[in-house]
């Protein structure tokens, strides 16, 4: 008899144990893990902004992003997170405007776009609040490998959400570089963000240095020092060398008149242009070819500002 009791007891413990684990499991049945890892998070998504407009993360690649999920009727953690972000932003100093905070509401039934906007504006940091249908929000939640559950509680507030405290730091290329948590000190968060921003600036800076070296030694003689297609030999070649500042580009994968993608430019640099004086530069390393493309685009930054966003991922 005693023996049987223990079997029941163990079975009960197992059952309760499994129920507890299941309580914290992701929708697909995998146990919820705090350490979601940085790789494999597909960050791009589209939700609705404060005036109901479509917000696509990949259109905001001029800034790095701090993203978190929450709900407005959360009196404790969500304002804590916002207060924390205010603190982090003040520590960021000059880098403050390099980082956009993105808040995704998981409570579409209660949080209107206007209320979200008012809530965020209150904390005076560069931010945007997003919402969508439950299905749309759930898709984003799944992409970010995070988790929430709506729970009814015996309270005048009705229901609340159990949710994670992940604060994702996403770089300009759309890659998650760090995930912070509620208990991380503001100083630590700000320091890490500054470090990543500095590294990235250095990397793109060094690409420009390499690119300029390539440009000056290989391209400038025809395309000119400013990229206006007016180098010393320009007058002697026909057709005239491309003016990168104003000319339409002939070889574009998009519609005629659109700007070439980085891939389009890479193809021309690598293969040359048949019937023109543009030779193949396939003897340059790939890195040098990409770098010179970055440099050429930097000659007319306004022109490439928006397009950059769409073609970054095609590399």
């Amino acid at each position, binding site marked *: 008899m005693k023996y049987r009791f223990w079997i029941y007891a163990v079975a009960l413990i197992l059952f309760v144990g499994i129920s507890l684990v299941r309580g*914290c499991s992701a929708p697909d049945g995998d146990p*919820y893990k*705090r350490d979601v890892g940085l790789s494999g998070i597909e960050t791009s998504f589209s939700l609705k902004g404060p005036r109901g407009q479509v917000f696509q993360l990949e259109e905001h690649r001029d800034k790095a992003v701090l993203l978190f999920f929450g709900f*407005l*009727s*959360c*009196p*404790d*953690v969500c*304002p*804590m997170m916002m*207060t924390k972000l205010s603190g982090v932003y003040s520590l960021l100093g000059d880098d403050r405007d390099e980082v956009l905070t993105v808040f995704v509401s998981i409570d579409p039934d209660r949080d209107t776009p206007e*209320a979200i906007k*008012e*809530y965020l*504006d*209150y904390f005076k940091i560069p931010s945007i609040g997003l919402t969508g249908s439950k299905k749309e929000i759930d898709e984003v939640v799944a992409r970010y490998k995070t*988790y929430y559950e709506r*729970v009814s*509680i*015996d*309270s*005048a*507030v009705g229901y*609340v959400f*159990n*949710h*994670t*405290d*992940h604060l994702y730091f996403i770089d300009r290329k759309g890659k998650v570089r760090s995930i912070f*948590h*509620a208990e991380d000190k503001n100083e630590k968060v700000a320091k890490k963000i500054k470090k990543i921003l500095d590294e990235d600036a250095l990397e793109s800076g060094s690409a420009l240095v390499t690119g300029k070296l390539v440009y000056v030694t290989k391209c400038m003689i025809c395309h000119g020092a400013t990229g206006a297609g007016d180098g010393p030999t320009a007058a002697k070649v026909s057709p005239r060398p491309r003016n990168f500042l104003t000319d339409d580009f002939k070889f574009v994968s998009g519609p005629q008149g659109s700007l070439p993608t980085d891939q389009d430019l890479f193809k021309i640099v690598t293969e040359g242009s048949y019937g023109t004086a543009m030779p193949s530069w396939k003897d340059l390393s790939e890195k040098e070819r990409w770098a010179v493309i970055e440099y050429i685009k930097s000659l007319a930054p306004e022109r490439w500002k928006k397009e950059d966003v769409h073609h970054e991922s095609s590399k």
Partner: protein
Amino acid sequence: MSVKDVWVRAVPPSQKITAAYLTIVNGSDEEIVLESASSEAAASVEIHEMKSQDGMMAMQRLPQLSVAAGSESQLKPGGIHLMLIGLRRPLTEGEPVLLKLMFGGGLELVVQAEVKR
């Protein structure tokens, strides 16, 4: 018994919910129990606890809060708090809020909470 460090989190005017924090010091040799609370600024006040387990935050309502003899209980961000639900007016920084705390044994205490971020 005394209550100190009482404050309410300032929220944007349209928000209907916020949290109050305080420390209950029980200098007596008997346990005291906070059974309920109310406020002129909110339709209802409840005791809630935020629990974080492996980064998963879960909020639950507590029926009451006991403070053992000779100890203190801190209600602070990320832990136990009083939840003010159905705010009757915008809470402006610098304009205090009154909270009424009802303890076991019929003891009532009205405290003034600072409103701050």
